[in-house]
């Protein structure tokens, strides 16, 4: 069957119109657009870091998220803390070594210093400055660069596992709906089994006997997500498509089973599959962060590991004094997962006409 030029042009036009119409519907939902902006912002961040390294704006020896180190010197005034409070200078015990000061009792390493001298030292969790936009962590590594690296990890992991998972579940779901019978029964029992497995403990066990890297985790999450509950949902969607008249007419005109499956059923299941994909990115990002937070992954740097480090170093209970170690990583996980979720909701309104306002 050959198509002439005009036919192809018309098809292109139809596709372009459909995309424009769907974009218009999507851009009507405010929250969906906010989500899209958040996702684009993090995508920008993750692409910015390699750019900065290649162009030489950032020196990798200083700004590398894992092995970088910047010595930030600071001169402190040596003072002696009084034994009783309040005094003129200090209100209470907590105020004593004020900003820019150091207690002489802490300086037993340098015995020749006296009160009133200046003591030169490195400050390790350095507060934000113009060279380090979000400060450094306790090992002198740039936090902003770590956030960028974390967003690369999140995007690779989220998109890879979501694509894999949705690919598997779409194919299996449509096959189950289309062929029915034993294949259907088998696939449904299989997804029952996967749904039944307690997912977080299962991931613990897997990470206990395999050194999980980002790739491995993406494959594991993708396969688990792809064989699980989404097969059932996609199957029910495919069942609705299967009984539509155009499938019958395709069969009457002599289409084979596989041809009908790929050219008629799959495209009609695609919207809900896309929706699943966007939502499962949220889950993948959260799982990665949780596993890194518990210290079970073999990843150099990610948002979960940043929070893990700030907790094991004891900064999380030091309050907001070291806010640059606590807030950015947690907010980044929340914002990116929330951004993908909002995009998914916007798409839901596009594909599901009953959710629209009119």
């Amino acid at each position, binding site marked *: 069957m050959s198509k002439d030029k005009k036919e192809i042009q018309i098809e292109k036009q139809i596709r372009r119109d459909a995309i424009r119409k769907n974009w218009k519907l999507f851009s009507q939902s405010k929250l969906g657009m906010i989500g899209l902006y958040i996702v684009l912002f993090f995508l920008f961040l993750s692409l910015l870091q390699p750019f900065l390294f290649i162009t030489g704006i950032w020196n990798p020896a200083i700004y590398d998220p894992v092995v970088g180190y910047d010595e930030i010197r600071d001169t402190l005034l040596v003072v002696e803390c009084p034994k009783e409070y309040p005094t003129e200078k200090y209100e209470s015990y907590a105020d004593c070594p004020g900003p820019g000061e150091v207690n002489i009792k802490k300086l037993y390493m340098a015995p020749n210093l006296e009160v009133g001298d200046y003591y030169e030292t490195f400050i390790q969790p350095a507060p934000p400055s113009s060279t380090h936009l979000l400060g450094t962590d306790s090992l002198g590594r740039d936090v902003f660069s770590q956030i960028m690296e974390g967003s690369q990890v999140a995007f690779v992991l989220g998109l890879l596992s979501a694509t894999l998972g949705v690919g598997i579940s779409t194919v299996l779901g449509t096959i189950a709906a289309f062929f029915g019978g034993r294949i259907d029964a088998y696939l449904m*029992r299989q997804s029952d*089994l996967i749904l*039944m*497995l307690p997912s*977080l403990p299962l991931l613990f066990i897997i990470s206990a006997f395999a050194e999980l890297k980002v790739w491995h985790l993406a494959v594991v999450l993708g396969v688990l997500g792809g064989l699980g509950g989404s097969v059932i949902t996609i199957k029910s969607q495919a069942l609705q498509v299967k009984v539509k008249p155009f499938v019958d007419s395709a069969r009457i005109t002599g289409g084979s089973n596989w041809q009908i499956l790929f050219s008629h059923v799959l495209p009609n299941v695609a919207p809900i599959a896309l929706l699943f994909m966007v939502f499962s990115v949220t889950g993948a990002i*959260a799982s990665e*962060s949780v596993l890194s937070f518990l210290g079970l992954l073999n990843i150099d740097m990610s*948002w979960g590991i940043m929070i893990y480090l700030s907790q094991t170093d004891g900064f999380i209970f030091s309050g907001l004094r070291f806010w640059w170690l606590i807030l950015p990583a*947690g907010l980044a*996980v929340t914002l990116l997962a929330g951004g993908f979720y909002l995009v998914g909701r916007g798409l839901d309104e596009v594909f599901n006409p009953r959710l629209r306002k009119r």
Partner: protein
Amino acid sequence: MYEYIIKRTLQMIVVFFIFLVSSYLLFNAIPGNAFSNLLLNPDLPPDAYEKVLATYGLDKPLMERVQLYIVNFFKGDFGYSYKYFPKTPIELIAERLPRTLMLFAVVNICAFYTGFLVGKILAWRRGSKAETWITVTSVFSYTVFYPWFALMMLWVFGYKLGWFPIGKFLYPEKWYEAPWDSDVIFVLMIKFTVIVSILQFISYVLTRGIESLSLRRNIRFGSLMAIFIGSYIFWNTGDALVKKPFAADIAYHMILPVIVVTIVAFAGTALLTRTTMMEVLKEDYILTARAKGISQKRIRDRHAARTALLPVVTSFIFTIVTIIDGSVLTETIFSWPGMGQLILQSVLEEDLPVAMATFSFLGVFALIAHLIADISYSYLDPRIRIKSQG
């Protein structure tokens, strides 16, 4: 209907056996276990080596071990814990399960009610400013990185303000002279919670048929008051009076975890309720009800919300399994020594018998939850009921 239930149960039994076998194979695939340190010791005499293998049945072929595992599973025999040696995994689970159950029974009830109410309001106030703000809040709490959020809450309320204890589930100094261990109190509290929620549910079901709104409200308020008075009397008489201070201690430790998990868990239910309710509101019978001049509140509560409840309840039963997953995190952060902590510790320390027992236990729990979800769905959804009859 019955045919459906029987068929489903049979299928679940098959799935359960596959689960047992595959979980055994999974654990079998873990390289290294507590024996390997012992067995790799070059000073170990060969006959002692053989003896250790024979004692634990490790010299048998794989298929035989799988069979043995299944038989022992039904006997409830998981061997001994490597770490807490004289104790068996079943004893450990029995000790820790009440703590987890108590915490998560309360959390589930709170999260479900809040979620359903919020979702109802969200769908009804479509397009208003309140809707946007509530949606933003619930999306935030749905996607917030939970350990981070819990730690921040712990810092604010436990450390900075000092309103709640920072960890553990009791103050040990209050329990020096207690004649019971804490599990007795936990079991009592679980019984109390379950009975109160069942009573509340019964009163809700009984008053559902009352037509006039004000009468229904008054009766519901009255029954709530009756439950309050009843529980007051219960805690001030006899056996429970002696146990009251200890129960109060545990309840005080529970407040912060319950609030934190509820904030995180309600959003899923709320967002799902909103979606299903908005789909329902487009149905023709809502238009009919509007045309008949029925009050807005009545349409919302009786025509729309009740229909929308169905998928929400089912998905909620599914989420119970996820909440147990989440219990690992909650219990680690709030140092609440329950099932979640047990499974995490046993996996990290390669205490295989305990890990296998807890994993299979969670699997059985999930299986039963799914079966209940399926059966209740088939009972509630007339489409499945009719299809299986005809």
